[in-house]
């Protein structure tokens, strides 16, 4: 019961503020609503007992990426853009495409619900009290089976850092 209340609260907050994020005119307002969505998603992660991802989501997304976005919004002068047309001219095409996509995914999810033997059989989830400690299990898996992707991710971050510095520095 409590699980249900928590899930629907965070899901509602996430979807509502995602919708507001897409429709607000001011980019700073969009950034704030995106932060709300990301925090609500972190709540969903906590409800799924993924404590490490919950903390990583808050520290990395909200504390790192969104601060970067807010800084760039402050660097870029937006008050000209505020008085111009907000959406591009392909609004109706976009709505059509998205509705088609929604219909497709929705029908797929709905029909996979009622073919018991043919789809992928889902086991019953382990009760929350019997899960192993989350961070410990995650670290064991990350530094054992996924060590090579972990190192490659560090190289990727280095490349991104160098690329950002080269892009943003003043040409002389």
């Amino acid at each position: 019961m409590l699980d249900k209340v928590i899930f629907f609260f965070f899901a509602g907050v996430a979807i509502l503020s995602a919708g507001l994020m897409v429709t607000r005119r001011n980019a700073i307002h969009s950034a704030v609503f995106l932060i709300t969505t990301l925090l609500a998603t972190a709540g969903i992660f906590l409800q799924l007992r993924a404590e490490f991802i919950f903390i990583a989501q808050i520290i990395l997304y909200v504390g790192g990426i969104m601060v970067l976005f807010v800084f760039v919004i402050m660097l870029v002068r937006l008050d000209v853009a505020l008085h111009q047309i907000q959406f591009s001219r392909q609004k109706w095409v976009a709505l059509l495409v998205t509705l088609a996509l929604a219909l497709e995914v929705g029908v797929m999810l709905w029909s996979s619900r009622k073919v018991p033997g043919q789809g992928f059989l889902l086991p019953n989830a382990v009760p929350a009290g019997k899960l192993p400690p989350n961070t410990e299990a995650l670290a064991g898996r990350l530094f054992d089976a996924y060590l090579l992707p972990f190192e490659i991710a560090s190289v990727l971050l280095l490349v991104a850092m160098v690329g950002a510095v080269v892009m943003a520095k003043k040409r002389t």
Partner: protein
Amino acid sequence: MMPIGYYLFLSMALFLIGAIGVITRRNVIVVLMSIELILNAVNINLVAFSRIFGDVAGQVFALFIIADAAAEAVVGLGIIIAFFRNRETVLEDEMDLLKW
């Protein structure tokens, strides 16, 4: 935990809202934010399946996706700053240097 379908529908809703943002908005910064929203929607799926199978591999993938999102945001914002310095705009339909 709740049945898996609830998480899938939540993820689908966030993904579609992000897709609408990517296609319709003119401001490139908001388009980048919508891409972050899409990546985040995928993470919900991964963590939900990781929970139902009792296997932390899904959460490892979610961590990698968060690292990718950080790299993508950094490079994208660097490009936006470089472009703004040259053309004084962040609207994507005014980025028409390749058009003649």
